[in-house]
Structures are given as structure tokens and as C-alpha cells.
């Protein structure tokens, strides 16, 4: 008589529970908001007449700004990515890290710094608070993302593919006919992702006073209390973002560019001694513009009138430190847990994770402000009051925004661990949980740690969603700065921003040093 092999319930249901929890807490509110547009008291047709020419012109304006930012960032990012990942450049590894700093800072920090810089250089000028200024600042913020995406793709071109072309044609032709077509998915993904981020960006245009679609949604929701129109406008933006994402969903769902410690295939790098000083200068110039200058300007502005403003700024921010820290840490723990579970089941599971990957991607790419509105609309009900009026709603916001990145970082790390390591342990009779803890986790610890730092820093600086959902009386760092900056003197705003900037950098540094000490990667 044969005996049926029984698998424990918990054994296979944990990923499902985690995924369903994410879908319920994050994705359902988004769907709910979308459905609200067509049903109930906020009917699509009855509000349609509010979507007048002015709204569409504003959407066109936002789209044009996003188009310019996506084009400029992708072009700049591809050039810088090529220099960093395909050329022999002195201190290349250092540049790769420093260049990414703007990605880890809240955009409003850089917006303040750029406004200060133009004020210092040109006095009262309208340039930086114009559409051109907005494009410039957003390009410096998002070009590093293009470097990350295109650099990863360039690094993964098999050297033999390039070399077989170099046997036939000169480098220029090889670049245009072989290299560029091969990284086309990365170029398109970079363009799409940056377009979505730019059209969704709220804090920079709001700070510069440039009226765009997101600021209009915010105004309708928070100032005019016209929730129906805000939801309708949000739905328009969600549709645009989802349509764009669907075009590139295969590459973006995999997100190979979110990886830590992957060496790529044997890639070919080029020496060019003649132009190396020029390339080095280009990199230094970019880093000066996008990283060094903002920090220096904030520093100068903050200490312009002595230390009084910095002391005042510190006093104002002091109550926010602990709350921000613990909230970010809790958010990070949740994102990492979901990320690890989803990544494991996606890479080592049944292979049916595509839909969940798409859900994560949609949540990630949904404009922050719209995610915020969705969470409010969904949780502002009597039976969800315990979420709506507590930090839980902020944590849900963090989870929705950043679980995608954690999941991809971890999944791409798991892919690099040979399956045979797990199979050998499985044959030796080692339980699944032990195999995960004692074999898989040590191998992916750098990626886990990277995901931890990135999630933590992103949570710490999150503004778009948090500003919509934070319960009254909550003291959180970015909210404090944002709410004060509208009416405070320039030096106080700069001081507060400098403190937030410094706290972020200190935490990144602290985590990095701790991680280096703690993490031991198994050597093969």
C-alpha cells in the first residue's frame, strides 16, 4: 500500500500569505481608487466635464517635462554608464558609488540645494523655478538611475559578441550596430522608468512653484477638497503609467539592474589612454554638479549667518529623529520580509510569480501622491480606523513603494547561487528552513544588506505618499522640512535640509561600515 507524502500547510503557504497580504493592503486600495472613478457617488461621467482643456494642457506640460527629463537622463546615463562600466577609468569603483548618491536622497533635498546654488550665483533668478530649471534638477536626480540600468546591461554583454564584431568593423560601428541594439531593452526601460518617475514627481515642482499635474492633484485633494476630481486625475496618471509599464514589463519585472555583487558575464572593457583624462574630467564634472556642489551650497547657505539657523533647525528636527528612524526600520523589516519570501518563491518556486512581480512593479511605479490618495480613500472607513489614524498607513505606503526594489535585489542574488548547493543539502536530508538559513542566506547576505540599506534610506526620505497619509501630530523628518520650507527663511530651510542630508549620509556610512564588519561572504 502506498502512503501519500504530506506536505505541511505552512511549508508552501507562507509565500502565498505574504503575497495576498501585499495585494490586500497595497494593491486593493489602488484598484479601489480606480474603481471609484467609475462608480458610486464619484461617477466618471458626472466628473468628466471637470477634466477640461486646462487639465489636459497641464498633463501635456507634465508629459513634456517628463519626456525631456527621460531623454536627457537616459542619454547622460548611457554615456556615463559606458565610461564607468566599459572603459578603464581610474577610481572607477569609487565613481560608481558616489554617482548614485542623488538616487538615495529625497528629491526635495536636491531641489533646495539647486535653488540655493542659483540664488548664490545669480541672485534673484526665475530660471531655477522655471520648467527648464525643473528639467535640469530632475535630470541630475534621475541620470544615476539610467547609469545603473544601462551600466548593468553593458556589463552583461558577452565579450565574445563584441569581439567577433571588432574583428570585422571599427569600434564606432560596433557600438552603433552591436552594442546599442543589444542594450535596447535597458535603454527603453530606463526611458520609461524615468518618464514615470518624472511625471509622478511632486516635491521638486511643488518646492519650485512650477504647476504640474501632480501639484494640481495635490491641490484638488488637500486644498479644494475636490476628492472626486483628484481621484479622476489620479486615474488618468495611473493609466498612463501602467500603459508605459506594460510595454516594457518583461525587462522591468525582472529588473536585472537591481543587483548587488553580480559581476555580469565576461565583459569587454576598453583602454583609451589618449581620451582617459577627458573621460575622467567628464565624470568628475558630473559628480561635482550632481553631488559635491549641492552639499557645499547647502553647507554655505546654512552657515551664512552664523550657527543660529543650524541650531534652530536642529531643535526643530530633534523630535523627528527617533520616530523617523523606527518607522523606517519597521518599514524596512516588512519590505525585506516580503521581498525575501517573494523572491525565493519567484526564483526557486513554481515559476508562477510573474503576476505578483507585475503587481509589485505597478505599486512601485505608481506616483507616490496617488498611492497616498488611494490609501486614504481605502482606509478612511470606520473599520480601518486603526490603520488610517496610526503609523500603519505610513508603513503600508513604504511597503507599496519599495518592496519591488528589495524583491528584485534579493531575487537577482538568489539567481547567482547555484541550485546544486541547495540540492546537495536537500539530498542530505536537511530541512527547507535550515537550507534557507544556513545555505542560501549566507550567500545572499550582501544583497540582503544592500536591500536593507536602500529600503531604509528610501523610507527615511519618502515624502510623496507620506505627506498625503501622515496622521495629525506625526513628527517625521521629511514632513517637518517640507511643511516648514514654504514659510521659513532660506537659511533655515537650507539648514534643515543639510541636517537631513547629513543624517542620511551618516546612516549610509554607518550601515556600510557595520555591514563590512558583519558580513562574511562564503568563498568558493
Amino acid at each position, binding site marked *: 500500500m502506498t502512503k501519500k507524502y504530506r506536505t505541511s500547510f505552512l511549508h508552501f503557504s507562507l509565500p502565498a500569505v505574504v503575497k495576498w497580504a501585499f495585494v490586500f493592503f497595497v494593491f486593493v486600495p489602488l484598484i479601489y481608487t480606480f474603481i471609484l472613478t467609475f462608480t458610486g457617488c464619484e461617477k466618471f461621467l458626472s466628473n468628466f466635464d471637470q477634466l477640461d482643456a486646462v487639465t489636459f494642457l497641464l498633463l501635456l506640460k507634465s508629459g513634456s517635462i517628463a519626456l525631456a527629463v527621460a531623454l536627457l537622463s537616459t542619454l547622460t546615463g548611457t554615456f556615463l554608464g559606458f565610461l564607468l562600466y566599459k572603459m578603464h577609468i581610474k577610481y572607477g569603483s569609487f565613481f560608481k558609488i558616489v554617482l548614485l548618491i542623488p538616487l538615495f536622497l529625497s528629491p526635495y533635498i536636491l531641489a533646495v540645494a539647486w535653488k540655493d546654488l542659483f540664488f548664490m550665483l545669480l541672485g534673484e533668478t526665475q530660471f531655477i523655478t522655471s520648467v527648464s530649471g525643473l528639467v535640469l534638477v530632475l535630470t541630475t536626480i534621475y541620470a544615476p538611475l539610467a547609469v545603473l540600468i544601462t551600466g548593468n546591461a553593458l556589463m552583461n554583454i*558577452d565579450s*565574445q*559578441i563584441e*569581439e*567577433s*564584431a*571588432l*574583428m*570585422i*568593423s*571599427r569600434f564606432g*560601428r560596433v557600438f552603433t*550596430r*552591436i552594442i546599442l*541594439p*543589444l542594450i535596447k531593452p535597458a535603454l527603453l526601460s530606463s526611458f520609461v522608468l524615468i518618464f514615470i518617475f518624472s511625471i509622478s514627481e511632486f516635491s521638486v515642482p511643488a518646492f519650485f512653484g512650477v504647476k504640474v499635474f501632480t501639484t494640481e492633484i495635490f491641490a484638488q485633494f488637500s486644498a479644494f477638497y475636490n476628492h472626486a476630481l483628484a481621484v479622476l486625475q489620479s486615474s488618468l496618471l495611473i493609466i498612463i503609467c501602467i500603459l508605459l509599464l506594460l510595454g516594457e514589463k518583461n525587462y522591468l519585472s525582472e529588473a536585472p539592474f537591481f543587483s548587488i555583487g553580480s559581476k555580469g558575464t565576461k565583459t569587454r572593457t576598453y583602454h583609451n589612454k589618449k581620451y582617459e583624462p577627458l573621460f575622467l574630467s567628464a565624470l568628475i564634472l558630473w559628480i561635482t554638479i550632481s553631488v559635491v556642489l549641492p552639499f557645499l551650497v547647502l553647507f554655505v547657505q546654512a552657515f551664512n549667518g552664523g550657527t543660529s539657523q543650524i541650531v534652530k533647525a536642529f531643535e526643530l528636527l530633534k523630535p523627528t529623529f527617533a520616530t523617523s528612524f523606527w518607522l523606517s526600520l519597521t518599514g524596512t523589516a516588512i519590505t525585506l520580509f516580503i521581498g525575501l519570501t517573494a523572491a525565493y518563491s519567484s526564483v526557486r518556486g513554481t515559476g508562477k510569480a510573474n503576476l505578483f512581480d507585475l503587481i509589485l512593479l505597478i505599486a512601485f511605479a505608481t506616483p507616490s501622491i496617488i498611492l497616498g490618495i488611494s490609501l486614504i480613500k481605502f482606509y478612511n472607513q470606520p473599520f480601518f480606523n486603526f490603520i488610517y489614524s496610526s503609523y500603519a498607513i505610513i508603513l503600508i505606503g513604504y511597503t507599496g513603494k519599495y518592496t519591488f526594489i528589495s524583491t528584485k535585489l534579493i531575487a537577482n542574488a538568489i539567481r547567482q547561487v547555484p541550485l546544486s548547493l541547495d540540492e546537495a543539502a536537500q539530498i542530505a536530508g536537511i530541512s527547507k528552513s535550515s537550507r534557507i538559513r544556513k545555505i542560501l542566506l549566507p550567500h545572499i547576505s550582501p544583497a540582503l544588506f544592500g536591500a536593507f540599506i536602500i529600503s531604509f534610506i528610501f523610507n527615511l526620505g519618502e515624502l510623496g505618499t507620506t505627506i498625503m497619509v501622515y496622521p495629525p501630530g506625526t513628527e517625521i523628518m521629511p514632513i517637518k522640512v517640507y511643511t516648514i520650507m514654504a514659510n521659513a527663511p532660506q537659511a533655515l530651510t537650507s539648514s534643515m535640509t543639510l541636517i537631513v542630508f547629513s543624517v542620511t549620509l551618516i546612516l549610509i556610512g554607518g550601515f556600510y561600515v557595520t555591514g563590512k564588519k558583519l558580513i562574511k561572504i562564503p568563498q568558493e
Partner: protein
Amino acid sequence: MIELENISFSYPDKKVLDGFSLSLNQGEISCLLGSSGCGKTTILRLIAGLEVPGKGRVVLNDIVLSEDGKNIVPPHKRNVGFIFQDLALWPHFTVYKNIAFGLEERKVPDTKERVRKMLDHFSIADLAGKYPHQLSGGQKQLVAISRSLVLEPDVLLMDEPLSNLDVTLNRKILQHIKDLKTSFNVTIIYVTHDHREAFAIANNVVVLNNGKIEDSGNVDHIKNSKNNYLKNFLEY
């Protein structure tokens, strides 16, 4: 005549060749035989111009191709074909385009005709519209060979091209390679770690060990060599 004179070459973490010299005759199939890491692929890459010797020079038919850290003739102007271990077919091009690309770059007027001839020679005309991922291992191999031969190279460099094929296919392709010398009048330098492959096709075998030549000569000479390393190597 292909000459490598007093070549020194290092990768950042490893010295591969130190004062290495080799001369190979035109019109022959020469095999560089040796275990992994002995420097055989590096020698091919130096001839191709994908690497430049730190010291020494590479000469082809009395033309200095590279010398003391300088790449005098760039890879695409050496008229040398290279078949890589992974074949390196361009994944975004069809079979036809993979073969035609080099001719188009050189603006050869009868590109279509030459590609068609090559496709017919290897009986792969029906694959012209397919992409590399739609081909079997053997078909890929023939496309890679066609891609190199269509440019009528003086020298064809082959870096363990059969390492990913099964035994039957291996024999079939080996026969194709053997026929190339007569059909296309091309000099072949073939790199392998498998002495059976080398003995099956080579006129001349050069046995390498740690960047040095242990012995060289025709197949009979190598088979009867008294060299201890070689005797040991051939046992496996």
C-alpha cells in the same frame, strides 16, 4: 607565415606569456594543444589583435601587426577570422545578417551572392531567416564558420569551437573544418585541449604548458614524443 616574436603578456592578475616565440606556416592547419590556462587562447587573441603584447611583436606575412604595447593594425584590418568558443553569434541578427554583416561593413558589392554561396556550401540556406536562438548547436557552428569564411580571411582562428557539441556532431563539424583548407585555401589555427581533435585535423601540432612550448611537429612526431609532460598529457 605567422610569427610571434619574444612575446610577453600579462592579465592584471596573471602572467601568461614570457618571452614566447612561435612561427606557423601559411596554408596549414596548426593546432595549439594544451590544458586550461596554458596560454593557447591568449595566443589566438594576440594574433587577432584583441590583446596587445606588452613586449615582443606579432607579424603576419611580413607585416608587423602589433609591437611592444602598440596595436599597429586594428583587428578588423588584419583579415583574420575568429571563431569563438561560445561562437558569439549576434543574437539580434538573423543567420543571413550574421553572415552578411562583415561584407556590408566593408561595402562589398556582391554581398548577397557571397552570402548565398556560403549558405549553400554548408547546406544552411533554409536557416537564413532564423535567429541564433532558433538554431541547434551544430547549425550555430556552421553559421559561425560561414560568418568568418565569407570575408575570405588569410587566417582562421578557432578557439575550442567544438567544446559544446556531442560526439557525433563533433566528428561531423571536424570533417567540415578539415575540408576548409582545400575548399577555401585558408590557414587555420585551431586551439583545443583534446588531443584526439588535434590529431584528427592538424598538419602541425604545438603543445603548450604554462606559456611555454613543450614540443611541436606533425601528428606522428607528437604521438611518439619522448617529452614527459606530453606523454603524461596524452595518457588522459
